[in-house]
């Protein structure tokens, strides 16, 4: 007895799964390529610290866009285009959320949600001497044995 799970799924769903795989494999193939020496640095850059890398944005947006353009010429590809959208849309959202909470993106925010003091405050050059008064040494509580009543 042969168990072919793929044949148990209806044809429209099969095409959507294939479309999802097109989006997924293009994203992860790009991640593997990004480790190579010839990969352009511009694609590894980020528009903002909260956003994923440029290549991640590109490989999340381009596959459904290309599939929808192809689907206009070949209606058979419409289901695949839908499947690519089903993968790439939520995956882009996932990457943006995870990047938005990385320590680099949230620098200046404390874990409890309160705003931490901006880094610039500490890097300002004081104009009138010191920002904080110099630390004064604590008064000594040791009584010299050579003075007082009990010498």
């Amino acid at each position, binding site marked *: 007895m042969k168990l072919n799970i793929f044949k148990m799924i209806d044809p429209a*769903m099969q095409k*959507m*799964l294939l*479309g*999802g*795989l097109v*989006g*997924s*494999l293009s*994203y*992860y193939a790009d*991640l*593997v390529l990004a*480790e190579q020496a010839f990969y352009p640095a511009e694609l590894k850059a980020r528009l903002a610290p909260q956003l994923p890398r440029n290549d991640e944005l590109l490989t999340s947006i381009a596959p459904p866009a290309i599939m929808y353009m192809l689907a206009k010429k070949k209606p058979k590809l419409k289901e695949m285009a*839908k*499947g690519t*959208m*089903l*993968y790439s*849309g*939520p*995956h882009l*959202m*996932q990457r943006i*959320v*995870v990047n*938005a*909470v*990385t320590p680099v993106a949230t620098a200046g925010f404390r*874990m409890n949600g309160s705003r931490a003091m901006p880094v610039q405050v500490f890097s300002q050059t004081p104009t009138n001497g010191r920002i904080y008064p110099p630390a004064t040494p604590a008064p000594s509580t040791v009584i010299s044995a050579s003075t007082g009543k009990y010498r």
Partner: protein
Amino acid sequence: MDSSYKYMLIGAFATGAVDAGLDAYKTINPAVAGNVIYTVVNPALPALNCWIADAGVPLALYALGKVTKKKMLIDMAKGGAVYGVSELLGQTVYRVALVAQGQTPSYRIAR
């Protein structure tokens, strides 16, 4: 957009939201990396949190749809399954490629 596809999109985004939530929680609190839900059984396979989000959510939606006999939930499960299966397969291929080169996938994926 037909209503079936609309619910599929909702299901896919719901699955993606759970996936993002679990990943973001680990990013915010690196101390939970040792928690059981972030277990990596084999470096060539996705971590347990990915299985929970990408396979667990569509299965839960499907079971809920069967119990309550609501087509809406079944459609949502289908959408979640397209996202989840694609993500799990893609990540497995990526991890296998890195393991074959002798690299640590967990470091690369956490980038």
